[in-house]
């Protein structure tokens, strides 16, 4: 296929947490609000003069200093962020919005405060309490936390307008991004898609890390380009796979998987498009904040939600996506040392195989995987097994 016009530019935006568009937005007087977790409704961080940037630590090398503070058997993502913070890589942030959803990420953010990694005037770190299940009273608490710990702090520190109107405006802009990503995502359902999993991963990631208003023109153009893009006559992939699991902000993992002959057609993981790139429908009857909180709770696929209906939802979503996108197998993955996904992956990878009938590859992985020979071997074997299954099926 012909290269996408902006792909290299998109890749360059992922090379550094403080990328070109962030610098441009800040030069225009906007505030960079960092966050990591889906439990923070993204549009809340895009109100008024704020823009959200979901934190990554691209090109992470040594994480020795973070390991000193957080030990060597904790989440590498959390440690990589701390290491980058200590190096001064997040000095550009105006605020960091944390949720006490998983202990390791919470601690990572606490170290931002303890080690004073950002000395920008007005910079603050906040920690919100997040519910484990959906009920009226958990929604009340969630809404209150978002108001007190996020919106009020933005107003107090920077005079940000966090009115209902401002939130609705941010949601409208957010929805425009989501519509484009959703439209591109639909293209992956084709038998011979015009976009690879890697390309989609890169495009999706830039929407999380860049100011929405500045990335939108590039997204619009890319969508138009894809509409007329011609796929290769003979697909390069040998099997279609869906990925399910914990945080992946490193597109080289998708590249590695696709380098083994697979095509990644579905991305049900943190930083992926499910959840995160659904259009948010707001009514006029209730406050936007409450609706936004409820939406986030409902679409969240985080393993932290332990109520029975959410546990089932996660399995059903993985199954539904894999079917819709014509996957032949699933890769259940977790970031090494992630407690939530460690338990979830171990159990559900069996369930998806035994009860839903999916071939499943179950892996735990590091934060950076682009060069993992071991992982490559496992994916290659999985792709081969899927091919063999297909041959057997066709032979019957």
């Amino acid at each position, binding site marked *: 296929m012909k290269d996408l016009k902006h792909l290299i530019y998109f890749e360059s935006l992922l090379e550094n947490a403080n990328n070109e568009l962030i610098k441009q937005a800040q030069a225009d007087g906007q505030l960079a609000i960092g966050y990591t977790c889906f439990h923070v409704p993204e549009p809340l961080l895009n109100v008024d003069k704020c823009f959200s940037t979901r934190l990554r630590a691209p090109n992470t090398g040594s994480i020795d200093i973070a390991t*000193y*503070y*957080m*030990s060597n*058997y*904790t*989440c590498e993502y*959390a440690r990589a962020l701390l290491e980058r913070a200590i190096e001064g890589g997040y000095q550009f942030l105006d605020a960091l919005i944390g949720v*006490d959803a*998983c*202990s*390791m990420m*919470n*601690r*990572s953010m*606490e*170290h931002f405060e*303890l080690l004073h990694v950002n000395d920008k005037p007005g910079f603050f770190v906040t*920690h*919100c*309490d*997040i*519910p*484990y*299940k959906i*009920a009226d*009273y*958990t929604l*009340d*608490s969630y809404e*209150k*936390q978002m108001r*007190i710990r996020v919106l009020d702090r933005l107003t107090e520190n920077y005079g940000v307008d966090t009115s209902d109107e401002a939130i609705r405006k941010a949601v409208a802009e957010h929805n425009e991004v989501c519509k484009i990503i959703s439209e591109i995502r639909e293209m992956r359902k084709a038998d011979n898609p015009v976009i690879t999993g890697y390309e989609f991963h890169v495009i999706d990631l830039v929407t999380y890390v860049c100011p929405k208003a500045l990335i939108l023109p590039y997204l619009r153009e890319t969508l138009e380009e894809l509409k007329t893009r011609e796929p290769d006559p003979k697909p390069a992939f040998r099997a279609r796979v869906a990925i399910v699991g914990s945080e992946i902000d490193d597109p080289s993992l998708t590249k590695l998987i696709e380098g083994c002959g697979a095509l990644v057609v579905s991305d049900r993981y943190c930083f992926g498009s499910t959840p995160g790139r659904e259009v948010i429908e707001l009514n006029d009857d209730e406050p936007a904040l409450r609706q936004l909180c409820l939406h986030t709770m409902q679409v969240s696929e985080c*393993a*932290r939600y*332990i*109520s*029975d209906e959410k*546990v089932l939802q996660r399995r059903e979503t993985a199954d539904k996506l894999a079917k819709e996108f014509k996957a032949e197998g699933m890769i259940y993955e*977790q970031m*090494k*040392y992630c*407690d*939530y996904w*460690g*338990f*979830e*992956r*171990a*159990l559900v*990878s*069996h*369930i998806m195989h035994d009860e839903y009938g999916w071939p499943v590859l*179950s892996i*735990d992985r590091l934060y950076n995987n682009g060069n993992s020979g071991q992982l490559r071997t496992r994916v290659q074997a999985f792709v081969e097994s899927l091919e063999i299954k297909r041959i057997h099926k066709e032979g019957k």
Partner: protein
Amino acid sequence: MAKAPKFPNPAFWRAKDNINWKAQGENLKEVGGIFWDMLKATDWKEFGQKTVDDFKADGQRIKEEYADFMALSKDEKIDRILNGEKSLGRLYRKGAMATVRREWRGIKDTAYDFYEWAHMWGMLLMTFSRDLIPALNSALYYRWMISYFCCHGFMDKNIMGLRGSNLRMSHLLIYDIFRYVAENLVFLAKCDKKNGNSQELNKKVVLFDEMTMGQIMAGFPDLLGIPYQLMPVFLVSEIDQLTCVPYIDAVESYGLPSDTCPVPSSECGALVVDALPHMGSCFISSSMPCDGSTMASSYMARRFPDLPVFHLCFPVRYEDEETVQMGAEDIRACIKFIEETTGAKWNWDAYFTQMKRFNEETAYELQKWEINKSRYPQLLGPCYELFRKWNYEMDGGADPRTLKTFQKVNKILLKAYEKQEEPWPGKMKYRAIVWSCPAHYYANFSNWAANCWGINVLVEMESLNFTKQLETEDKEEALRDLARLYERMVMRRHTNGGYQNVVDELWRQCEAWDASLIIMYQNVACKNMATVQGVLDEQGRQRGYDLIWVEHDLMDPRTVSRRTMRDKVSEYMRTVKQAEPVDPSLVEFEDEVCM
């Protein structure tokens, strides 16, 4: 004054069993087959040789002990007879599953110790005889039940080196725990569908995730709340260090990463190998204390899909008063769930009665703290550590007999304080505090530290929980208080809700208890604690504390053995403190397979 109702509710004992005798026969046949296979596989020659070697070793030991005694001066001999032995390392032997004999504590204390030993046996026999067949039949289903037969050995380890008032108080405290365990073991056996199969009792049983506190059951006096995994997994791992190994192996073979906390791992492993009784009318799962525990509930639902479950989920940022109402509402929802599932009705009078008792117990607890903070601490050692956790977490004022124990213990405590007794006579060298969660497989570590190095653990992190007097009049505030209590459960109060609760709090407690030495446990799978280790280390050094980091793997002694744990302390004491051991026989000894 109205007579207090009996505890546990006599109706629970009277509940009729429905044992399937045919199934028992089949199980007996299967177990018999296993025994037969074991007998056939046994190398009898080696077994005979081992027995002879043990006899020889005993003979040698007696000879040495005799020679050692005879070498003492007259005064020393009198001291040994009256005050007991000094070289406790002698009680261990390489390859032995138990100590070689009981400790000589001097005439008076040994006599008292044997009295309590017999008292404990009497209680166990009486309790088991309340429904003997299912109770003993459990041993034919669950390997963990066998470990409970060694509970006296566990008691002995926990009171090693204790004398006088501390010995008496420790016996009283551990007796209550064992009584609770024995009663619940019988209830488990009665309820287990494979065993006693008492449908009548099962209708009344509410199962709790093992770390979930029992106080909510105070409002349901006609129901029986049982911490489900406490007996088969949690507590037994304190008695027998090897109990959880098969569970951990099973769940790791299933695919669970080995870096997860052994508590939820073992619970899930117990489900994988079917080591938990099939019982109860419903299950209260919990998001506490940490991320791993949260996730274990989905394994439970997978194993017992027909058991109704309520997920009790409390705020993590519990110091934020804005979150309290969510916790209170969740408790209200949980009460409603129990009512709907069991048909029972919440009883505020019963709840307030129990909470008043719990408040009284808390007041007694604070009295102990005050004395232990003083220059003459009196109640030290693992029995007290275990009792505090059990009382706070499981009993919660439910059993009126426990209040009597509090009264007796505090009476002894005050007298001992007046007399300025030493809980570890001649071994009061360092005032220490234990931080982070201790290793289950080394429950008596503080006992070893005192006997070997004179390190006296005044308090451990897990004892320092919620001490507010709970509301006993206003119903809405009572729910909020209950939420506050639950949010500060053992293993949660410090490790959740922000680093201040574990880092700043440690320095505050060190000052309050006048402790300069910190045994800093490092559960290698506890991410909550691992993620503050650098800060603790830095700030501890800046403040001039002796921080001894002791790694362990909570329920898996294969990762870090007891010996390795001891070595960490010994090395620090030798190299940094330039200290000499109080009892050199405890510096090096073998207990790799000792329960």
